[in-house]
């Protein structure tokens, strides 16, 4: 069975398929989704593969139903996921908030395409970045990753499940059409080499006194699943530690603060960045997802011209890696942010470094090539 669950070995695989295989390797056993380019291959692959490992694949009537079904499956104890693209993510956002307030671990894969609206269905974009962060109403923190290769579509899908389960949060995998569709070598480790962070479970047996939303030091309450005898109540209304609605400003402030702090305080356990040639860099390019591939090429080419430039790649994009940016990068460095939108993460970089940054932006439809990034580096070097 384990050979079916984890397809150990080297594969030549698309990012979307690698994401699906990552989900299976992470133990995902429920997928509810609605076909949408360019994420459909994730659903198609899981439609074939989930029944092989005893999991459930269901094609829902829309994305509203997709995310609701995934939340329900998570509440019943399953590792559960959906995959979509911009228009579908827009429809999912109300229930993303439900996932936040019910503290249900789920994974949402967004293979971004050209947007807004129907936009460019078959072409790449990176313009859902702020939507992922702020799209659902209200105050919350979200966890999101940005894979830059099919290999990371595999690795970060597993990471997304682990963070979702450990901290009881929805986690987004903010992929793009380029990494979703490109085919590259993917190494899948042995099953016993795959890290698994499990859900925190209650220590006390079912009895009347259990408070399902009482959290410990790490602000994460232990999770109870439906049918275990605890007779829990979950509500999207503001609730107290027992899960019961409590329409008071005090309880509301306490709940929302805990939900936000739960992510902020634990962020060092799941934010990730990678640096290339940052040691002596005076110019720093910040990039993520497929755009970071072009950025690395540009940095390599610039280094051949003896320009002291480095790349800071955001592997996780939310919560934003404020500390890493401060620590890895010299105070007086010149920043260039490149992304397939007209300036989203650049605002976060400006917030952290407290000065304007140069942008190499494109609205989407085609991956930004190394040339304009190299040009910006050369201009910054003058």
């Amino acid at each position: 069975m384990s050979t079916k669950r984890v397809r150990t070995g080297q594969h030549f695989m698309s990012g979307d398929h690698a994401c699906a295989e990552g989900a299976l390797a992470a133990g995902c056993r429920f997928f509810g989704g609605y076909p949408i380019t360019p994420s459909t291959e994730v659903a198609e692959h899981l439609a074939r593969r989930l029944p092989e490992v005893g999991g459930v694949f269901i094609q829902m009537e829309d994305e509203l139903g997709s995310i609701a079904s995934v939340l329900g499956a998570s509440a019943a104890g399953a590792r559960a996921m959906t995959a979509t693209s911009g228009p579908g993510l827009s429809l999912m956002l109300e229930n993303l908030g439900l996932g936040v307030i019910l503290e249900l671990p789920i994974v949402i894969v967004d293979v971004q395409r050209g947007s807004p609206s129907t936009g460019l269905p078959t072409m790449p974009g990176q313009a859902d970045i702020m939507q992922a962060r702020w799209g659902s109403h209200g105050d919350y923190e979200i966890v999101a990753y940005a894979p830059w290769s099919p290999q990371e579509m595999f690795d970060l899908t597993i990471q997304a499940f682990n963070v979702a389960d450990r901290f009881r949060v929805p986690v987004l995998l903010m992929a793009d059409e380029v990494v979703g569709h490109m085919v590259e070598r993917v190494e899948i480790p042995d099953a016993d080499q795959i890290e698994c962070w499990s859900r925190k479970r209650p220590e006390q047996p079912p009895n009347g006194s259990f408070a399902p939303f009482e959290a410990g030091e790490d602000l994460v309450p232990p999770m109870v699943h439906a049918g275990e005898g605890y007779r829990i109540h979950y509500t999207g209304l503001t609730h107290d530690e027992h899960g019961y609605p409590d329409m008071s400003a005090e309880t509301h402030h306490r709940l929302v603060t805990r939900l936000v702090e739960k992510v902020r305080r634990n962020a060092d356990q799941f934010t990730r960045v990678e640096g290339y040639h940052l040691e002596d860099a005076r110019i720093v390019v910040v990039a993520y997802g497929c755009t970071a591939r072009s950025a690395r090429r540009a940095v390599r080419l610039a280094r051949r011209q003896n320009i002291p430039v480095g790349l800071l790649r955001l592997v996780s994009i939310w919560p934003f890696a404020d500390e890493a940016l401060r620590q890895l990068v010299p105070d007086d460095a010149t920043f260039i942010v490149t992304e397939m939108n007209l300036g989203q993460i650049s605002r976060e970089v400006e917030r952290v470094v407290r000065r304007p940054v140069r942008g190499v932006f494109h609205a989407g439809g085609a991956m930004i090539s190394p040339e304009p990034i190299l040009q910006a580096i050369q201009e910054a070097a003058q």
Partner: protein
Amino acid sequence: MRREIRIAGFGGQGVGLTGFILGKALALYDGQEAVMTQAYGPEARGGASSANIVTADEPIDYPFIQQPDILVALSQEAYNRFRPTAKPQALILIDQDLVTPDPDDNIHAIPATRLAEELGRRIVTNLVMLGFFTAVSGLVSRQAVEQAIQTTVKPATIPLNLQAFATGYDYAHQPEGSLPEAEQERVA
């Protein structure tokens, strides 16, 4: 060194599968880096479609082809559409019964469809062409491609696909094959 390959034809000629097998051979069995990309959606259906491979001996950052070093054209429309995107001196492989090229091009021609029909299955035209490509380009080893074929196609069709591949490969070595001397040396 970075090399860019575009394999183009009309829908149903197995262009995507050909690119996949080639990329897999390079990335898994020949110790190279390789990335395959394709056009998607309505614009990719019908007409001329293509599979694109970038290969290199170092990590490939930018995954798309910019100016192919090699163009494989399985139809006239594919040749007409994609010839201008390739380098002027690009190596160009064509099905000689389906494509009339510019005489100035660096052309290597094979009657791939006809050879596939002689094997009884026109559907393996792409594998005949892949064999020819392997022999002519010298970019990828015969063993690697054969391994990629065996791990990719349905088990029942492996013998036929290997036979088609061998047919194309061997055609490049026949005296009537239109290989220039320099290319023949490289293949050998």
